[in-house]
């Protein structure tokens, strides 16, 4: 038997905001829609930026790709701030218990010296690369046009900072908080020939002025390759070498990458499909950065996994690009 509480009903005079109604029709809108679409200023800007006097704030010409309407994008995860932090809070809760378990079990001690050394050489230096990814996504956030697109970059930027922090904690778990692993990882990042390609790549992306090109170079090309090399192939390799407990420490990155890829793919697809101009422009960037990335990442792929690793990851990237016809 069901019970029914009587409530006074008041007839609303409208279902949602007018800008939401113009875009989605006269019906109740979701919180994602109300908080994401058409809320950025679009015109009548008062002053030109001192730091870029040839453009306005929110200027669409900060990228060479052109959208008739940037607000046609959609994040398949439907993240606005509230849903974003709640999704990440769930992931971090699992991660926290993984890290606690790893520590309690003394997993670091159970790993061989060689495995620990390999993780410190091949994984921990990524904390620096993730800071670069944080800056690159923050760049795209601050120069984009529409909130529904921009907010994805902001969430991504904060995620990358979080990942850089988890990677640092992995170092501390492995060295018993002596911080030696972090010092060593930084030395690798700065001087080890295997890492110089990636560092050069990141420093180059930090100088790119077109925010959508930054997205291609960082989130599409580099992340697809790097996350495949490290969080799939290196994970497998280290497991074979007796380091299977590492899996607990990198679950966050693996889950995050799956989650983030949904947004990356959607953003890429919508933009590519808008016009031939976009397709050509993006194709050029992809070709350009893919070539650099393969050259720059190959030494790292080799020491982390082996000589077939780079080609395997390149396949993953090419398949992903093929899905959007690139």
């Amino acid at each position, binding site marked *: 038997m069901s019970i029914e509480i009587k409530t006074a009903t008041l007839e609303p005079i409208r279902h949602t905001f007018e800008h939401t109604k113009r875009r989605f029709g006269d019906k109740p809108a979701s919180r994602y829609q109300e908080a994401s679409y058409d809320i950025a200023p679009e015109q009548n*800007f*008062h*002053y030109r930026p001192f730091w870029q006097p040839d453009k306005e704030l929110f200027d669409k010409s900060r990228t060479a790709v052109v959208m008739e309407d940037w607000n046609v994008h959609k994040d398949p995860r439907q993240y606005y*701030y509230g849903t974003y932090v709640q999704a990440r809070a769930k992931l971090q809760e699992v991660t926290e218990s993984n890290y606690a378990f790893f520590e309690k079990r003394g997993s670091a*001690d159970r790993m061989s010296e060689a495995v620990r050394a390999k993780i410190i050489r091949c994984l921990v230096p990524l904390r620096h690369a993730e800071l670069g990814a944080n800056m690159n996504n923050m760049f795209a956030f601050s120069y984009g046009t529409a909130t529904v697109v921009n907010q994805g970059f902001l969430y991504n930027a904060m995620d990358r*900072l979080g990942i850089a922090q988890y990677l640092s904690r992995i170092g501390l778990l492995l060295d018993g908080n002596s911080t030696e692993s972090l010092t060593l990882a930084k030395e690798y990042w700065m001087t080890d020939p295997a890492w110089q390609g990636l560092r050069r790549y990141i420093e180059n992306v930090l100088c790119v002025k077109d925010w959508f090109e930054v997205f291609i170079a960082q989130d599409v090309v580099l992340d697809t390759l790097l996350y495949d090399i490290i969080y799939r192939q290196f994970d497998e390799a280290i497991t074979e070498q007796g380091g299977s407990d590492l899996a607990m420490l990198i679950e966050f990155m693996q889950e995050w990458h799956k989650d983030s890829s949904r947004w990356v793919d959607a953003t890429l697809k919508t933009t590519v499909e808008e016009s031939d101009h976009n397709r050509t422009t993006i194709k050029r960037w992809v070709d350009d950065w893919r070539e650099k990335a393969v050259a720059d990442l190959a030494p790292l792929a080799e020491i982390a996994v082996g000589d077939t690793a780079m080609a395997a990851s390149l396949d993953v990237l090419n398949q992903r690009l093929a899905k959007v016809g690139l």
Partner: protein
Amino acid sequence: MSNRKINMKEKYRLLTRDLDWEYSYRDYKEIFPQEEFEGIKITDWSKWEDPFRLTMDAYWKYQAEKEKKLYAILDAFAQNNGQQNVTDARYVNAIKLFLTGISPGEHQAAMGFGHVGRQLGGVGARVACQMQAIDELRHVQTQIHAMSHYNKFFDGFQDFSHMHDRVWYLSVPKSFFDDARTAGPFEYMVAIGFSFEYVLTNLLFVPFMSGAAYNGDMATVTFGFSAQSDEARHMTLGLEIIKFLLEQHPDNVPIVQRWINKWFWRGTRMLALVAMMMDYMLPNKVMSWQEAWEVYFEEAGGSLFKDLARYGIEMPAYAKTAIAEKEHISHQAWSIFYNYGHAAAFHTWMPTEKEMDWLSEKYPNTFDKYYRPRFEKWREMEAAGERFYNPTLPMLCQTCQIPMGFTDMEDPTSTFYRQSEYDGERYNFCSDGCKDIFDHEPEKYVQAWLPVHQIYQGNCGGPSMEDVLGNYYKINLGVDNMDFHGSPDEERWNMWHNLESAENKLKRAS
């Protein structure tokens, strides 16, 4: 392996500062091209003191808990038609002003902190700014959600974003944030991080949220409580940026002082909107604007500037003028909006007799002498069916963009007026503060998109008021605008509460 203990400070350093590295494939200046052009000298970013130590895992956790609670209350508010429980439907106009005027500013702040969160060379400062960027996005989005339910039952919320880009009085906050965002990264930090978030937040954010608490607005006040700990973080960042800049190099002191002068005045002018909200739009008053100003600027700000004196920083220029204006500004601003009540997307009204008595008591030096007679006259006109609306278009101040209506504090009956010439054109100002800001950077302020000029130039939908207000601003004429008395808002409110409208009362009385 026995684990060494690492203290919080050291751990935070390892998890933020230590992530950075010295670039060698590209030049520092290529990566941070905006760090020098403002003349600010940074000698050592490592001297930056982290204003708070919050790693991302903790951030996600705390913020998710806050969001969960907030949205549970917003859901309950909507389910129970909480909009019926506000003190009186006039109150809702305060939050219409908030959603159309302030929330888009939160969005701008998110973008601005994102920009400096990329452009500053110090990783500690960048990370702190990034956290504020995402907090500010939180604020605009949760404000939209908190007011979404009001939008379904009251007029004037429905096109806040479209209006913010166009409507004459909304160009006051819009130009304020545009000004900060188009400045260099350090000026932005002094403008929004320090002057706005630290010095003035208790006069902006707090009055609206306290107003909500005093007037039964559970949705907005819950947002306010939820945002409090974010705001506390933002204040510590604002203070740190000032101390950092002043400690880095003595040459920074005069630059920072000029920015403080500018942004104090810019902020004070924008607060005229808050002043009128506090004194006129809240049926249940929190405190008078004058009282708020005395507590939060004169006392709290006073001791802040005493503290900064050791760096060679003085009270903002024109603080004296602002202090003198505290007894006038709310009355003058409300008069302007009452005059142009047909051109606003919220309702205006004359205070009741009881409210006028409150104003007399709170403003013994000014209200009865300068404002009450005018307001009583307007009330009589309304009673006679001739509610006063000013049919002309006002002249706007080139800097703050408020109609020229503020008076000379030496002679509160005459309008204050200044002019400057630049490149053969004359520009008008409401105050010495606004004129100074213009004179220092005329090439910037001549670019201002002044709503009245734009109407005259035919850029706002056409020549008639209907074209501008109805088509271009998208104000629903006769619904969103005009006096509260006789509005659909009032009618619905009376229906919900079985109240008789003022109009019917009058009819019955005669």
